[in-house]
């Protein structure tokens, strides 16, 4: 499933708005007006203003994740946990709302984060191994090259450093302002290059 960049941002933003509603409840007029024991709600109370801030922050955060080339599934998880935690934590500061609900939400989002991190960060290597094992076929070592004649003349004997060195000594053909950015060994027309 291809997720183009605009769809990516839209999904993240919509999710963030919904998450903030779940955490805060729907915005109320009276919200954040009372100030007691030095605590107050820093978020603007109006529906439009709060949504606007969440949209802007979501897009900026999404763009940062995109510039970091994070796969969408991970973006989604990171954003879900982060926004959930932020929204629930700021609800803890809101003296109007029941603290227990907010605490439960914080714990839930924390657990989600830890769980997702453990599953995708650590346990995925087992799933990866099973996936790779399903792609593999097995053969005895003596069978290596048994069905393929590999002439000795086709063995690659040029190392990356050597290739870079040769290339750099001929860069003047391209004029100034050049830079060697990358090298890659390829096999072309049955010869290694």
């Amino acid at each position: 499933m291809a997720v183009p960049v605009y769809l990516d941002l839209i999904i993240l933003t919509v999710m963030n708005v919904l998450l903030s509603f779940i955490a805060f409840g729907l915005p109320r007029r009276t919200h954040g007006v009372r100030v007691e024991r030095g605590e107050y709600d820093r978020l603007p109370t109006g529906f439009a203003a709060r949504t606007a801030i969440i949209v802007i922050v979501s897009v900026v955060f999404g763009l940062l994740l995109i510039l970091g080339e994070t796969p969408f599934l991970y973006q989604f998880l990171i954003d879900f946990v982060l926004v959930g935690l932020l929204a629930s934590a700021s609800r803890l500061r809101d003296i109007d709302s029941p603290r227990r609900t907010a605490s439960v939400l914080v714990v839930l989002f924390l657990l989600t984060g830890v769980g997702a991190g453990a599953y995708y960060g650590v346990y995925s290597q087992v799933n990866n191994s099973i996936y790779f094992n399903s792609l593999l076929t097995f053969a005895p070592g003596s069978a290596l090259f048994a069905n393929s004649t590999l002439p000795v003349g086709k063995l690659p004997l040029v190392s990356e450093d050597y290739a870079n060195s040769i290339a750099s000594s001929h860069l003047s053909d391209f004029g100034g302002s050049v830079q060697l950015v990358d090298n890659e060994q390829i096999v072309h027309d049955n010869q290694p290059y």
Partner: protein
Amino acid sequence: MNGSYYEAKSANTVGPGLFLFSEINLHSFLGDTSIVIGNHYPTPPTTNFASIYYVFTQSQVRLDGVTAFNGGTIYSADGSIVAQYDGLNSPSYVNQPWDKFLVANLASQWGSTRAGNGTFSLFAGGFFTIPASQSRLALSSDEELIPYKNGTALMLFMSPANAANSLGGVILAYKGQFTYYNMEGLNLVSPDYAKATVQSKLPALSNGQLFAANPVIYPTQNEFIWIVPYYYDSGTGIVQFQGIAVMDASNAGNLVIQPNQGSIEQTRDLALAGLLAGNTGNQTQVTKVNGAVQAFVTYVQSGNTYASIELNGTYYYATANSLPFSQWVQALQLKPGETVQLQVQGTEIVNLAIPPQ
């Protein structure tokens, strides 16, 4: 292969090292943010290097956490997409349909979590009461890309965990096929060991250094050998080819170091000739010859004794190096009229047996 080079001036608008949206990784990622960035490399779609395409491989994280191969995109010089492929069904001129870093990554995880044949565990390395698995493998730092069948194969070398000097197996990735060759019984040394052995024989220089790189495994008639080129590095970005070392993969002491003889090919052939005593690669087959000795003569050339036997009208020779000691002594005592069974490579005798009368 031999250090000759092609130049192709191709003003690619998408490629590595370019600014922001022209940078190939970000360029491809913006089109589909669900992908995991893979390897990318230039490739000429035709034999004459007239144009250069850029192949960008990608993979995708599945819901179960597996990073799976997911095709790739091929860009032409003007940045337009020539072709896109799914999975590993690439056009024929694409060398590596998979992301080679992902192959290495998967191989590494596959090796490190291997708790047995086909079973995998996070705790394959042992944990409290769980014993460490004997099947764990670790990836060697060297890889090899070779022409294989009608395409390209990537070879990854694996050693048993904590035994990096020996070769446990080879993973050969060829298009959509991944094969694991189990080398455990063959008693071969790992590429790292081959490299280090060659490195240890190279002299230290007062300026710059000689270093061994890129070991390549190659099967001869009876055994695997490592071919290890070595280079001079000036420390200022100048690297020059210095020579080739060839070693028996099952016997690291059997090593020939051949300094540069003008070209890489020539040096390689001389080194191989040195190791295999004149028989390079699979050009010569071992054949069996039986018959009665028609003529027998020994002579000395360049200080080596040769025993020459005429059998069925053809002359064969043996030296002290070509035969095991006891067979060599038998060979020296041959008389015309005796019946012998020979195994010969070209005209060189590699095995000699005298059947009981």
